[in-house]
């Protein structure tokens, strides 16, 4: 392993520690780290809505800009002042979650292959956010705005493209005109419109994109911003006066950090960072990386056109086309190779994936060539045959979550799928009917599925809320779901141990075969993380 990749993996481990530490406070499902993109949307809309009010109040004349914005904070603090503060804090939060979203996806290696589109369409969004944010600062036209506008002009003038240097707009009060502020307002509103378009583009290749965080997280975020706005209202500094050097300024470190940097270094250095950074982000997806895995493959004879794979594919990589059999109305799934993430979630959705089918060779409707459902059935049969007596536990996990190779015991049969979402629920019943005392299903933590929806669909299918659903109703002890990320193998081992004991205790009390799935009381599967 090269030094840089080992640095990266230690950064990833460090990051995951942080992410996991939020689970105890927020719960896995509401962990903000797993909703950074959706939080970005939320903050954007807060900025947009509060901005509407500010725009109504804004007077874009030279004399009016400062007065109108300052009036909000002074005379109308209870409404305009709060909205102004919300506008600014939500803009900061928007930038922050966007940067963290980028960092997270980078650390998780989610920028190559089928993800390159989302990555590449995300990079320009950062520029849009910066442009509208920085120009927004100027609309206060106080000393900070004066400093920032002049600094930006100097920075842009470094490029030999403007016939008249932009800095001449800020030399003296005479140079500043009403038109300038109309231009600022135009950019400050126009660029976010481009941003909406860019955001829409950014999520084109994923289905069911989360464009709004879970309600509790949204409400909590809004309340936090509101509390901040009330506790620390945003105010203007002294009005801009171009005949004076602005004094010491409290800077906006989110949007303006590069301006003191420019004074400490030079405009050229800042340009090099911006251009170099953007180029780096753009070339990342095309740098050499592991070869793409084989994509899903449809077997028309086994596809009845039920559309379940189409519904469940997290990347909108399936379209329904007329079936070649020519039967009127019958459809066939078709995979769009460029969009397919090779996750196997479609195979888990297909009704033809049930191992109870009486064909000697199980061929399903949509399958992964590298791990066909037919081969999985054979593996499970072999694994069951090796389990000793009736105490065995079958573990279904995935290559993305906690590694199953660290689980040891003669009583275990382990199957690591591409994604847990690839597991047809009927396999759980098949394992129990085939002699396993219990089944443990694991995969990435809730909300953290490497293929977005795998653990969500699995949970819903096993709980009978989604097709294909688990027909059997195993007891809470016989079927456990324990989500655990890579690196949490020890915690997963604890769950297995706990399960062994629970099953053993049940065996003592109950001489009835617990593996008879239909004999148990009706319970939805116990849902836990590896942490309980």
């Amino acid at each position, binding site marked *: 392993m090269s030094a840089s990749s080992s640095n990266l993996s230690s950064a990833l481990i460090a990051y995951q520690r942080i992410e996991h530490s939020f689970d105890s406070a927020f719960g896995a499902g509401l962990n903000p780290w797993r909703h950074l993109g959706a939080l970005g949307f939320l903050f954007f809309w807060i900025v947009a809505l509060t901005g509407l009010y500010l725009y109504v109040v804004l007077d874009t004349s030279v004399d009016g800009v400062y007065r109108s914005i300052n009036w909000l904070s002074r005379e109308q603090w209870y409404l305009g002042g709060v909205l102004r503060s919300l506008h600014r804090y939500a803009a900061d939060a928007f930038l922050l979650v966007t940067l963290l979203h980028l960092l997270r996806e980078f650390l998780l290696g989610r920028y190559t292959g089928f993800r390159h589109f989302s990555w590449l369409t995300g990079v320009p969004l950062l520029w849009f956010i910066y442009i509208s944010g920085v120009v927004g600062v100027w609309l206060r036209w106080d000393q900070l705005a004066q400093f920032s506008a002049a600094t930006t002009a100097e920075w842009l003038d470094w490029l030999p493209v403007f*016939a008249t*240097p932009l*800095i*001449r707009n800020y030399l*003296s009060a005479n140079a500043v005109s009403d038109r300038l502020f109309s231009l600022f307002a135009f950019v400050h509103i126009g660029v976010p419109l481009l941003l909406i378009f860019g955001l829409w583009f950014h999520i084109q290749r994923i289905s069911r994109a989360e464009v709004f965080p879970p309600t509790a997280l949204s409400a909590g975020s809004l309340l936090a911003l509101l509390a901040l706005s009330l506790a620390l209202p945003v105010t203007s500094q002294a009005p801009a006066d171009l*005949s*004076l*050097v602005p*004094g010491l300024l409290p800077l906006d470190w989110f949007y303006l950090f590069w301006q003191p940097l420019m004074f400490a270094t030079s405009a050229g250095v800042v340009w090099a960072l911006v251009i170099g950074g953007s180029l780096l982000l753009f070339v990342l997806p095309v740098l050499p990386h592991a070869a793409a895995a084989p994509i899903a493959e449809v077997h028309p004879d086994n596809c009845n056109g039920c559309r379940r794979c189409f519904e469940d594919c997290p990347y909108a990589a399936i379209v329904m086309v007329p079936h070649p059999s020519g039967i009127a109305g019958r459809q066939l799934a078709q995979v769009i190779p460029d969009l397919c993430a090779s996750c196997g979630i479609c195979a888990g959705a297909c009704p033809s994936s049930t191992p109870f089918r009486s064909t000697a060779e199980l061929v399903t409707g949509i399958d992964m060539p590298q791990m066909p459902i037919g081969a999985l059935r054979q593996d499970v049969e072999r694994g069951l045959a090796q389990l000793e007596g009736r105490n065995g536990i079958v573990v279904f996990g995935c290559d993305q979550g906690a590694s199953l190779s660290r689980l040891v015991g003669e009583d275990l049969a382990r199957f690591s799928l591409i994604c847990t979402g690839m597991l047809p629920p009927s396999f759980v019943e098949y394992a129990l009917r085939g002699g396993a005392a219990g089944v443990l299903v694991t995969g990435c933590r809730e909300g953290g599925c490497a293929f977005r929806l795998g653990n969500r669909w699995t949970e819903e299918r096993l709980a009978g809320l989604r097709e294909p659903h688990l027909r059997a109703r195993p007891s809470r002890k016989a079927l456990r779901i324990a989500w655990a990320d890579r690196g949490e193998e020890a915690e997963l081992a604890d769950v297995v141990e706990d399960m062994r004991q629970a099953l053993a205790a049940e065996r003592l009390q109950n001489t009835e075969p617990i593996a008879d799935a239909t004999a148990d009381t009706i319970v939805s599967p116990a849902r836990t993380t590896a942490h309980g």
Partner: protein
Amino acid sequence: MPADQALIKLSFSHEGKLVSACRQRSAEELAKLAPNMRAPMDCPRGRSPVTVEIDLDGTPVYRHVAKPSGLSEDGASTVYHRFPVQSGEHRLAIRLNDDARNAGFNYRREETVNLKPGKVLVIDFNQETGGITLQ
């Protein structure tokens, strides 16, 4: 910037004089040109670079030769330079040349300025209002 300083900003955007005047083409020269190019006068569009010098209290502090912009060097020359000075009284001498055909400086201005701390003094150039301006 320390609190007891003031800032001087020099900025102008000015088109230097043409490098050379128009010249009558001789009959021979005209004959060599393509028929659609036979203008009797040859008027080069190139402009002079603009040279500017500043002395502060008798010491030269800045000198710059600003080339004309544009591919054929026929645009304005622009300068932007800022430098902090101690607040208080200073003797400023500014010299500017915008004509390559003349040596020396065709615009000069000397002034004693009293700069308050934090004050920005802008040195500009505007031909219509008589050359070098201070504000």
